[in-house]
């Protein structure tokens, strides 16, 4: 009984925590709020990429591409289809609808890219996904009805702290639950030894496609949240560097560790902003904050190549990740 209920208790606890934090977040300044919301969005991106790169062991470099599909689809839906919303109630409702549109669009894109390319392995898949991200960006740059290089502007600002983190809790819940089911063990099997998994009757391509589509769906939702928070989206925002940023979060946090990835997303989003106003021994670090950021990454990768929390999962139990191939 209690083991069946426990995950739902985690879910309820997570939502309760977000609701409490939501009361506190009103008191902090708009700059801090922006950082917190950015952290939340990056957490969703990292956790969803972790399903592909961490749990299923595929190397995708196109996550920002799916994010942009979701961002553009949901933003276009809000600005062109939905009427203007004034009260918070309908704003939230419209946001959810727009996010679903964005998520589904990204999932369809994930399916289109995934089916032909997921028969590829390792580096080849990385190249295909990288190419996909770039293609999406170039297409968006040249579609004038979506704003071209200037992007889509004047997207209503419906994203709030509450929505971002409630969605994060759900994303974490869904992924952690799926991984623990019998079906979910298939993802880990594909990662640990693809040939053995196939020999045991696991449809590896199908597992990869499912991981890819689910990851893309959540990336699309994150993109929608991003669009409805920043009011302006440009193809530039979702370039190769953004994809790499998300991959770094996953690797630094520890491939296959949701806990670690969440932490890394928070740390890597906060670090450059924190360094803006960090002074020590009378030296202002803001001038070379990007160098410090890079240095931190290098040192961490040297000290902990398996990632900060590689090998630890939510239950504090040491998973088999220690043996898992990295990179």
């Amino acid at each position, binding site marked *: 009984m209690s083991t069946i209920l426990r995950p739902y208790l985690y879910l309820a606890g997570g939502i309760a925590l977000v609701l409490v934090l939501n009361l506190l977040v009103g008191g902090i*300044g*708009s*700059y*801090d709020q*922006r*950082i917190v919301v*950015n952290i939340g969005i990056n957490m969703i991106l990292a956790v969803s990429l972790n399903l592909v790169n961490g749990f299923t062991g595929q190397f995708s470099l196109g996550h920002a591409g799916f994010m942009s599909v979701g961002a553009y689809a949901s933003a276009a839906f809000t600005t062109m289809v939905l009427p203007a919303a004034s009260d918070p109630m309908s704003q939230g409702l419209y946001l959810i609808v727009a996010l679903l549109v964005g998520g589904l669009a990204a999932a369809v894109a994930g399916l289109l890219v995934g089916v032909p390319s997921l028969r590829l392995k390792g580096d080849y898949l990385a190249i295909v996904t990288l190419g996909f991200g770039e293609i999406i960006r*170039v297409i968006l*740059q*040249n579609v004038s009805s979506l704003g*071209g*290089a*200037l*992007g889509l*502007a*004047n997207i209503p600002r419906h994203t709030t702290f509450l929505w971002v983190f409630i969605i994060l809790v759900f994303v974490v819940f869904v992924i952690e639950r799926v991984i623990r089911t019998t079906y979910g063990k298939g993802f880990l099997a594909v990662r640990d030894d693809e040939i053995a998994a196939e020999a045991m009757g696991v449809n590896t391509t199908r597992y990869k496609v499912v991981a890819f589509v689910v990851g893309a769906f959540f990336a699309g939702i994150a993109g929608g949240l991003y669009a409805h928070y*920043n*009011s*302006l989206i*440009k*193809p*530039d*925002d979702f370039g190769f560097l953004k994809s790499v940023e998300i991959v770094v979060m996953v690797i630094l946090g520890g491939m296959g560790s949701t806990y670690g990835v969440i*932490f890394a997303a928070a*740390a890597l989003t*906060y670090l450059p*902003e*924190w360094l*803006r*106003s*960090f002074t020590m021994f009378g030296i202002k670090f*803001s001038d070379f*904050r*990007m160098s410090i950021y890079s240095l931190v990454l290098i040192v961490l990768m040297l000290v902990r190549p398996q990632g*900060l929390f590689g090998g*630890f999962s939510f239950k504090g139990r040491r998973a088999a990740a220690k043996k898992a191939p990295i990179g």
Partner: protein
Amino acid sequence: MRYRLLVLTAAVACVALGGCTGKNDKPGTAAEGNTIKIGHYASLSGKEATFGQQVDNGVKLAVDEINNGGGIGGKKIELITEDTQSQTQGAQNAVEKLIGKDEVSALIGEVASGRTMAAAPIAMREKTPMLTPASTREDVTKDENGNVAAYIFRICFIDPFQGTVMAKFAFESLNAKSVAVLKDNANPYSVGLAKAFVEKFKALGGTIVEEQAYEGGQNDFKAQLTAIKGKNPQAIFVPGYYTEVSLIATQARQLGITVPLLGGDGWDSPTLTQGEAKTALEGCYFSNHYSEQDTSAAVQDFIKRYKAKFNGEAPGAMSALGYDAMMIIAKIIKDSGKSDRETIRAGLAALKNYKGVTGNITIDEHHNATKPAVVLQIKDGKFAYHSTVNP
């Protein structure tokens, strides 16, 4: 293993705590009342780094001169500069910090129109006046409904004017009847300026024989240039940023294209004519905000002071615009005796006939500056004055 995790957690906790204390001690709280805070956000690093650094130098020179002269009504200017890394999110984070955390009275920035427009909604929401020194895209000073954005101003001309200047120059001065256009599709500024140029050039009776596009960050332009070469244009309009223009010019010459290249203020950077680009760009023209060779006392005096402060480095148009932007805000505060956001906004809206380094600045009802443009010709790697075009 467990021990290591413990150390790690402790380290993380320290960082987090450090972050919290950093957040709590508001910089300048003690000195509040004695300083006037002005925020400047600029691309100090990244693709368009020289733009940001040049404006930053100009702003810093202005702040130094004001503070060394005793400040404004006894109050010193406290300049807070934030880097955007030439990225949209960087610009938004920087502006949110400057407004929300540093509580600046006014904002200066950015150069790139795309980033100014990304940050504008935040300034509008927080009712903070923002003066952009060099964003020339037409809709920068418009809000989401196409009306004038109440808190966004600029002290530079706009692209329809700049496009007109270069179209007229190509048609009349260069006597070119067929021109090709090579624009940066990833850059809102470039797209806007190309559009303005094409419209005007066609209206004058010229033909655009070829329109090609590239993407900022690209290194190879031979495909586009080969297509352009096949159409034999008499000039090529390249309204991009200096980063790519140098490469485009070099590759065009390699392909045997000898016609002059034309451009806009995005060319203005000391790095434009470095290396091979120096000979490749010889004799090319671009429109700009001011000329170093302007003999007026205001300009020559500014150049002298600027060189004295920055080790003999010559100021570009971006530095001059940054200087003017800061000086205009200082003048408004001085004249009104107040430094609140609303006063500065009203002062900017009412600015008339301000004699700046970059010419006479009057801000019109659309929050744009009506100013002449200069056409410069590249001679021996230097930007030589060619002519002035009045609006």
